[in-house]
C-alpha cells in the first residue's frame, strides 16, 4: 500500500491538547512523522517582561494546568536567589509538600489517560477517582484544585494547621495502599502488558543524545532526577530515591511513574511529620538587582528550567522557560517510527506531553489590552483558506 499521510491532531480524541502530527504510514506501520506544536502558544515570555514580579508570578503559574506549582516555585526561587532572600525552612517544607502532592495528582492523571489510550477505561475511572483524594487535600491547603497560588516572593501564603496535617497523614495511608494496588495491576494485567511491552522503544544512548528528561529518561536507565542531583528547597533534608527502570519502553515509563507516586507519598509523610516551626514567609524587596539565574526544578514530566535575567527594575528583563515536554518531543518522534498506528496515542501519551507548557505565544495587543473576538465563521474561513493554499486538501 502506498505511503498514506494520516493527520493526527490538532483536534483528536487521543490528544488532550492541540498538537499536530502528520504521520506517514505504510499499511499500519509508521514510516515518518512530522510534528507541529504551535497551537497553544500564548506569549507568556513576552508578557512576563511587561509585568512586575507578583503579577508575573500569577501569569507564569498559568503556563500549565497540571504543573502550575512547578512553574511558580521555579520562578519564585530563581528571583529569590537573585535577590538573596533567605526563605524560612517551614516555607521550603510547605513548597515541597505541595510540589509532591502535585506530582502525585499529575502521575495519577497520566496513568488514567494512558490506560484510556489503549481502551482500558476501568483503570482510567479508578485512577481518577483516587486522584480526588489528592485534589481535596490541595483544595484544603491552598483553596483551589489547580493554580494553587501558594507561593509568594519570600515564602508561602498558606500554612498547615494541625488538623490538616493529621488529615494529610491519614489520606497518605489510603493512597499508599492504592498506589501499591495500581503497581500490581500494571505489572500483571495481560491486556495492558501486551500493549506496552517493547512499545515506543528508546535506548539509553538515544535518550541521552536526544536530551530526554524526567520519567521518559529514567525509564531508559538514566538516574537523572533534579531533586537528587541538584537539590533545591527542602530536598537536601528530604533525600529522594531516584527510581529508574531498564526496559526503555512505555511499560518502563508506566512503572517508573507508578513507583514515583509511592516515593512522593513517602516524602510527603516525612515532610509533614517533621515540619519545622517558624514563620512561613519573609518580606521581599520590590525590585531585584541586575543578575541572572538558571533555576531548575523536577516537574512531574522532567527537568524544568527557568533562565531569568533581571536588570535592577521590578520587572523581568528576560525569562526563558524551557519545559520538560519540549525536551521530550524528539524522543517521542524517534520512539514512534517503526511502530503501529494503533500505538501512536499510547507512545505519545507515554511522555505525558503538556502542550500548554511547550508553546507560549499568541497575539494579544499589550497596549490597550484589546482582544480581537473571532467569530466561528472567521475561524472556519481561516482553516479552509490555509489548508487549501498549503496542502491543496
Amino acid at each position: 500500500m502506498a505511503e498514506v499521510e494520516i493527520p493526527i491532531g490538532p483536534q483528536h480524541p487521543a490528544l488532550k491538547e492541540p498538537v499536530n502530527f502528520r504521520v506517514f504510514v505504510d499499511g499500519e506501520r509508521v514510516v515518518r512523522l512530522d510534528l507541529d506544536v504551535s497551537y497553544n502558544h500564548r506569549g507568556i515570555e513576552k508578557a512576563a517582561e511587561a509585568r512586575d514580579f507578583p503579577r508575573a508570578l500569577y501569569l507564569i503559574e498559568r503556563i500549565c494546568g497540571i504543573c502550575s506549582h512547578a512553574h511558580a516555585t521555579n520562578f519564585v526561587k530563581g528571583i529569590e536567589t537573585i535577590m538573596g532572600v533567605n526563605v524560612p525552612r517551614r516555607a521550603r517544607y510547605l513548597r515541597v509538600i505541595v510540589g509532591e502532592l502535585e506530582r502525585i495528582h499529575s502521575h495519577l492523571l497520566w496513568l488514567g489517560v494512558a490506560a484510556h489510550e489503549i481502551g482500558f477505561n476501568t483503570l482510567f475511572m479508578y485512577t481518577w477517582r483516587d486522584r480526588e483524594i489528592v485534589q481535596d487535600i490541595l483544595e484544603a491547603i491552598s483553596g483551589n484544585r489547580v493554580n494553587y497560588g501558594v507561593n509568594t516572593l519570600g515564602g508561602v501564603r498558606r500554612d498547615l494547621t494541625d488538623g490538616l496535617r493529621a488529615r494529610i497523614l491519614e489520606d497518605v495511608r489510603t493512597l499508599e495502599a492504592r498506589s501499591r494496588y495500581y503497581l500490581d495491576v500494571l505489572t500483571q494485567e495481560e491486556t495492558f502488558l501486551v500493549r506496552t511491552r517493547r512499545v515506543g522503544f528508546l535506548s539509553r544512548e538515544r535518550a541521552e543524545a536526544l536530551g530526554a528528561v524526567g520519567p521518559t529518561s529514567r525509564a531508559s536507565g538514566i538516574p537523572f532526577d533534579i531533586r537528587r542531583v541538584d537539590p533545591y528547597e527542602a530536598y537536601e533534608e528530604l533525600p529522594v530515591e531516584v527510581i529508574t527502570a531498564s526496559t526503555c519502553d512505555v511499560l518502563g515509563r508506566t512503572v517508573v511513574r507508578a513507583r514515583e507516586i509511592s516515593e512522593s507519598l513517602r516524602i510527603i509523610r516525612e515532610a509533614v511529620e517533621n515540619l519545622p516551626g517558624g514563620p512561613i514567609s519573609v518580606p521581599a524587596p520590590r525590585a531585584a538587582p541586575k543578575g541572572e539565574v538558571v533555576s531548575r526544578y523536577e516537574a512531574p514530566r522532567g527537568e524544568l528550567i527557568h533562565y531569568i535575567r533581571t536588570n535592577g527594575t521590578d520587572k523581568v528583563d528576560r525569562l526563558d522557560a524551557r519545559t520538560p515536554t519540549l525536551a521530550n518531543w524528539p524522543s517521542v518522534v524517534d520512539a514512534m517510527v517503526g511502530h503501529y498506528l494503533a500505538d501512536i496515542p499510547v507512545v505519545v501519551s507515554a511522555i505525558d506531553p503538556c502542550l500548554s507548557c511547550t508553546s507560549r505565544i499568541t497575539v494579544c495587543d499589550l497596549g490597550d489590552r484589546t482582544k480581537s473576538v473571532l467569530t466561528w465563521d472567521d475561524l472556519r474561513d481561516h482553516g479552509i483558506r490555509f489548508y487549501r493554499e498549503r496542502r491543496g486538501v
Partner: protein
Amino acid sequence: MEPYGFLVYLLVFPGLGFLVTFALFGEWFDRKLTARMQSRMGPPWFQPWADFVKLLSKEDITPEGVPRRLYASVPLFAFAAVASAFLYVPVVFPTSPFAFQGDLVLVLYLLSLPPILTFLLGWTSGNLFARVGAIRAVSQLFVYEVPFFIAAFGPAIATGSWSISDIASAQRSGLWFLFLQPLGFGVGLIGLQAKLERTPFDIPGAETEIVGGPITELTGRKLAIFHLAMDMALVTGAALLVALFLGGPTVPGVNEGLAAGALGFLVFLAKVLFVVFLLTALKTALGRLRIDQLVRWGWTVLTPLALVQLAVALVMAAGGIP
C-alpha cells in the same frame, strides 16, 4: 397461525416491538452495569431512548461523492438482518413458530451481516479514518467468525438437528449444553464480544486511534438506526447463546399451558441478562488489543479451542450421550 396472530407475533410481541424495547433496555443494562463496576453512577433508564430520539432529530449529512441511496440503505440492511434473525430464536415457547431445519445457519449468517455492512459503510464514506477502520473491521471479521460458527455447531451436532428450536427443546430436561460443552460456550461468548466490536475487540471503532472508525461520517437518522441495530445484535446474539447453551425459555418440569409460556419468558429474560452481564464484565475488565495481536491470538488460541470442543461433541454424539 391465523393472519392476525401472525402479524401480532411479527410486529408486536416477540417481534419488532419487543425487540426494540428489549434492545434499548439491554443497552441501558450494559451501560449501567459498566458504570457501577467503575464506581460511577451510570445513566437513567430512559437514556438509550433519549439518545435514539435525539439522533433522529439531528441533521442527516451524506459526505460529498458518496452514493446517497447506498449510504442511507446500509443501516437499514443491518437493522433488517438482525430483526429477522431474532424471529428464529425461541422466546416464549421452546419452539419458535418460524422454526425450520437449518434456521441455525440462517441466523448465524444474518448475524454476521452487520460487520460486513460496517465495512461497506466505512469504505464508501471516503473518510480516511473510516477507511482504516473498515479494513480493520474486515480483518477482524475473519478471525472470530470461524470459531464462533464452530462453537455454535457443537450443540447442533449433540442434538442431531439444525434447528435452534429443536436444540432448545432438547435441553428441556435441564441438562444444558453449558455443562456438556463449557468450552463451546466460552468461545461463543468471546466470538459474540468480537462480533459486536466491544472493548477487548473494539479495534475498528477505537476512538483514541482512528476517531470513529467506520461510522465516523454517520450522522442523524442513519446513526440512530445503526446504533439501534448494534444494540439489537447484542440482544439477539445473547438470545442465540441462551437458546444453544442455556436451554432457551424452557423450565425443567413445567411444560404445558399458559404458565409454561409466562414462566418460560421470564426465565428467558433472566438468562439473556445473565449473558449480557458476562459480556459487560468482559468489556469492563480488559483493555483493547491491537489488530495484529487479535489475529495471532484468534488463530493460535480461539480456533483450536473451538476445534477441540467440536471433536469432543462429535465423540459424544457418536457415543450416544445426549
